[in-house]
C-alpha cells in the first residue's frame, strides 16, 4: 500500500496549494487522481517522489519511508538532450539495479521505438511512449504517471491505453493524473477527487457504477458543481 498522509505545501506567500492531502494507492490497481487545472495534482506526484519539498506530511510505501519502490513517469523529457534512446536505456541500466532490460526491449518493440533515435528529435507521442518505457521497465510495485495522455494523437493514446490492460499491469499499483478521463474511464479501479488542496471524495469506480449507476464523469460534475 502506498499511503500519503497530510501533505501540506505552500509556494512562497501564495495560498497554500496542498492543505493536508491524504489518500492511499492499493497495489494491483489503477487509481486516478482527478482535479481541475492548477489544483496541485502534479505537485502531489512530485511531492511523493521527493522532487519538491513539502511543508508537512509523509509518504509511506508498505510502511516505510522509501521511494525505491516507486517509479515515476513525468509528463516531460528527463534525459539529457544529446542522448539517443539507446544511450538512455544504457544509462538506466547503469544506475538502476531494478532495471529490467527484457521489459524495456519488449515495450520498445511494441511501441516501435528505435534505439538510434535522438530523444529530443522524437515526436511528442514517441517521447510520451519512451517515458512510459522508462517507467514500466523498472521492477517496482508502484508507478506514478503524470498526464500520460497529454497532447498526443488518438493512435498513440490507444497504444498507451492498451498497456493498461496488458500483463505489464500485474503486480503494480498505478497512480495517475489525466484530463482525458472519458476514454479510459473503464480502465480505472479507483478515483480520488482533489479540490482546494484536499481530497474531498474517493470511490471504487465499479462500485459507483453498480450502486449509483454513475460514471466517473457524472461524479465529477457533482463534485465540482460546474
Amino acid at each position, binding site marked *: 500500500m502506498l499511503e500519503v498522509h497530510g501533505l501540506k505545501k505552500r509556494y512562497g506567500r501564495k495560498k497554500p496549494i496542498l492543505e493536508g492531502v491524504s489518500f492511499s494507492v492499493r497495489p494491483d490497481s489503477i487509481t486516478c487522481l482527478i482535479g481541475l487545472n492548477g489544483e496541485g495534482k502534479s505537485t502531489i506526484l512530485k511531492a511523493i517522489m521527493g522532487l519538491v519539498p513539502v511543508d508537512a506530511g509523509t509518504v509511506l510505501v508498505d510502511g516505510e519511508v522509501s521511494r525505491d519502490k516507486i517509479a515515476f513517469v513525468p509528463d516531460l523529457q528527463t534525459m539529457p538532450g544529446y542522448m539517443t534512446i539507446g544511450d538512455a536505456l544504457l544509462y538506466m541500466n547503469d544506475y538502476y539495479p531494478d532495471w529490467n532490460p527484457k521489459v524495456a526491449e519488449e515495450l520498445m518493440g511494441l511501441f516501435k521505438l528505435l534505439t538510434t533515435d535522438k530523444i529530443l528529435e522524437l515526436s511528442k507521442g514517441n517521447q510520451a511512449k519512451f517515458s512510459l518505457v522508462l517507467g514500466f521497465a523498472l521492477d517496482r510495485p508502484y508507478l506514478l504517471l503524470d498526464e500520460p495522455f497529454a497532447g498526443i494523437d488518438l493512435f498513440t493514446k490507444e497504444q498507451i*491505453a492498451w498497456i493498461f*490492460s496488458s500483463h505489464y*499491469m500485474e503486480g503494480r499499483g498505478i497512480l495517475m493524473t489525466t484530463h482525458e478521463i472519458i476514454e479510459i474511464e*473503464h*480502465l480505472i479501479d479507483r478515483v480520488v477527487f482533489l479540490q482546494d488542496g484536499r481530497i474531498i471524495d474517493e470511490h471504487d469506480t*465499479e462500485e459507483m*457504477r*453498480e450502486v449509483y449507476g454513475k460514471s466517473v*464523469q457524472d461524479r465529477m460534475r457533482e463534485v465540482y458543481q460546474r
Partner: protein
Amino acid sequence: MQFDQRSPVYLQVVRWFKEQIATEELKCGQEIPSRREIAAQLGINPNTAQKAYKEMEEQNLITTERNVPSKITMDQEIVKKVRTEMLDEAVAQFIEAVQAIQIPLGEVVTKVETVYQSTERRKVDA
C-alpha cells in the same frame, strides 16, 4: 469493445460471455481465454477481467480448476437458462420501447412476424 460508462464493466463482460454462450459461439465445455488474454482482447483492466470471471463462476457459467484454462459449463440446463434469460431481457426491453409509443398488441405481433421472416430470408440469401 465499447463500454457503457454507467454500468459496471465486469457485468458488461459477463453479458458479453452470455451472448456468446446463448448463440453457442462458445460451446459447452469449450475453453475460454485466460483472464490476461481476455483483458487484452477486450481492452479492460486485469482486475475487471478477474472480477468478471469470479462472477461467472458464481453463476456457474464457467468452471475453473487450478491453473487450467476455464471452460464453459457442461450443464445444458444452465445454457438453456442463459438463452431464456437473454430472450426475456431482449423482449422486456423491446416491449418497454413499444409500450412507450402505445402500439396495440396485435399490430406489434404481426409487425414482429413480418420483420423476423424478412431478416431470416436475407440471412439465407447472404
